[in-house]
């Protein structure tokens, strides 16, 4: 069966982290379609197909790799909004962050996050982690197909 690589939505404000993540994804052939958003607002814009993402292709991403610390809307706020929207609830969200703080983990799971991954300092480990994420969420995990007809364009 042809593995269908789906879209990965990456939310990360730090350009270095973006670069490293993309490199890691590329090393594992997962970088086919990665949308990079630089802050919380852009994430929502994309998911709601509004703003600069008005003309994007319909359909939800296979997974959202969400950083916590972002300008404008931070990760938890985005998470809250997405998970409380019935249409976006089913989108898997993986928090990818440097913070190992218990309260962040608790809060995230309370809001319904699907996974919480701490970015290791060690690059090798980082690459491994990304690979696993990508494989799992991007390929192995199945998500429901939503009717794109509900999405309005423009």
């Amino acid at each position, binding site marked *: 069966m042809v593995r269908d690589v789906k879209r990965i939505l990456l939310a990360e404000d730090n350009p270095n982290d973006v670069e490293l993540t993309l490199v890691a994804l590329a090393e594992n052939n997962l970088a086919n379609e990665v949308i990079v958003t630089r802050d919380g607002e852009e994430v929502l814009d994309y998911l709601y197909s509004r703003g600069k993402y008005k003309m994007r292709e319909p359909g939800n991403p296979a997974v959202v790799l969400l950083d916590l*610390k972002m300008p404008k809307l931070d990760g938890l706020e985005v998470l809250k909004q997405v998970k409380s929207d019935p249409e976006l609830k089913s989108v898997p969200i993986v928090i990818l962050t440097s913070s190992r703080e218990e309260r962040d983990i608790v809060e995230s799971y309370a809001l319904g996050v699907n996974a919480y991954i701490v970015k290791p*300092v060690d690059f090798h480990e980082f690459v491994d982690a990304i690979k696993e994420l990508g494989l799992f969420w991007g390929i192995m995990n199945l998500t429901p197909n939503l009717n794109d007809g509900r999405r309005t364009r423009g």
Partner: protein
Amino acid sequence: MQRRISAICMLVVLAAALAVIAGWHLRVEFLVGIMIYYVWQMASPPLTVIPSRTPLFATVAAPFLFTGHSVGLALSPVTAHSLEFIAGIVFIVLLAIGFYRITGSKVAVKGLILISVPLVFVLMFVALVVQMKTETERAQRLSIHAKNVSAQGNSLLRDVTEAETSLQWFLMTRNPKAHNDFDNAAQRIQGSVETLKTLVRRNKEQSARADRLAVDAMQELATMESMAQSESAAAPAQAAKLPVERQSMADLRAHLDDFLSAEEKLDASRQESLRVSWQHFNWLLAAGASADVLLTLALLFLFSRGITRRIKRLEDNAQLFAAGQEMGERMEGSDELAHLDGVFHHMAASLDNLSRQQQAVMDNTLDVICSIDSKGRFVKVNQAALKLWGYQPSELVGRPCLDLVVPDDRERTRKTAEDIIAGLEVRDFQNSYTRKDGSIVCLMWSASWSEKEHLMFAVARDITEHKEKEERIRLLNEDLQRHAHRLEQTNQELESFTYSVSHDLRAPLRHIDGFAELLDKSSGSVLSDNGRRYLKTISESARQMGRLIDDLLAFSRMGRKEMLDGCVDLNEIVSETRDSLVTETEGRSIHWKIGQLPLVKGDPVMLRQVVVNLMSNAVKYTGKKTDADIEVGSANGQPDKVVIFVKDNGVGFDMKYSHKLFGVFQRLHRPDEFKGTGIGLASVRRIVRRHGGDAWAEGALGEGATFYFSLPKEQKG
């Protein structure tokens, strides 16, 4: 029982005394009675402090009675009688005294005596009357007897005369009838004489006379008989002799006269004696009646003085007592009234004492106890007012209580007072009073209204000091709160600091490592060996810093976190840790020796950290040994603590640096010798100390090390 015997004795003696007075001369019984009385007095214990002198008096009275009787007889029966009478009275009086003393002079007894004395007199009078009646009857009988004798005497005389006449007639006429008459007369004479003799046989003298008369009469008769028998012509001569015979006749007559007059005299003397008796009786009656009246009056007087007056005094005392006033002096005496008076005085003393004790309680409290009327004025204030407010209680009576209240509190106090009067019970009303010297005192009141007394009863406590203390406590609390607040803030700051650190410090490190790797990948071929080494160093440094950050964060968090208090099974933790170290010990030969570890009290997560740190250290520092021996066990430590050790035969350490072992980031080996951040042992010590124990180590270079830590024993039950 004793009293019964004494009563019987008394009665016996009394009866004997009365009998004596009545003239029955029962001296024997009287004596017996006295003896019994005497014996009883000797036998019983003395009933009064002064021994009763009644037996003494009794023994004195008895001989007096005897003497009196004898003396009296010498004088006259009447005098003897009187003396006995007097003695009897005296004796009765003495008996009464004795009785009075013995029975404790009860009021009843006094009353009894009061009644019995006139009663005795009455009995005495009755006895006298009876006696007089007997005497009079006797006198009457004797009188009749005397008359009888007289009649008989006269009849005899008549008969003699008749005999004489008949004889003369016979002698003259020799009429047989005359002789008959003479015989009859002679017979009658004989009879009369016999009768007379019988009548006067009681009296010796009269009997003698009667006998003489009889002789005379017989002689005469004989003479007359002989005269009658001689029937001769000498009769006229005989007849002429008769005047001679007439002499014997005349003698007879004379003797008869004597006899009769003697009898009359006797009769007269008896009548005289009766008259004297009656006189005596009258005298006795009069004397007795007066004595009775006098004695009764005297006794009545004594009784009234002794009883009535004292009852009045008792009544007065009782009234004084009821009014709560001082009573009069104690009553003298030992009867019921004196006893009752004593009881009253005792009650008064008791009540006095009680009231004094209550007053003492009232006056010795430190709180002011007072009563206030419906108009807000002090009615009664206890002594504490002096100490507390500076006023004597007397100064406060009648003053409105609001006077002393500081102006600011007056309205509030007035309102509360009204509420209390309306029925509210107040327990902690506070206000301030101005003391006499002007200073202010803070008071806490509890008060309630009594409808029955129509007064408010209140207690005031000085809380000035208490308030100061409260104020101090409040300030301290404020201080504490500020501190707590600041600490809270600091903690929060620390939290955010930690948060930042954990997030923001890691990212650049990740980048360093990542890009160094990428550089190596992309341009590594161009670099020299050194260059490549430099890149590696850069990466390694970044990673090391990451580890440091993680360790430091963990260390800091562990210090701030709440410690759980549970029962921790170290055996479980040790075996789980050993399993988790399998990856690190792969390929190595390690001999584990795990002993039985006790249960301890503490935070399971933190204690796990301790075990993990120590055991992974052991594993790490035996890394250079081909055969590693690691032992975990418990040692006999102190009585209240358990001691656990982890021993290895690894690289050991120099004891002179042992004090540095547990320092933060302190290491005794270089990073290229053994990896590590130097935080593991610092964490161990910190955790163990937080649990109330400690950590220490022993070791020798090249010979291994033993790390100990102690924890408080698990309290059973």
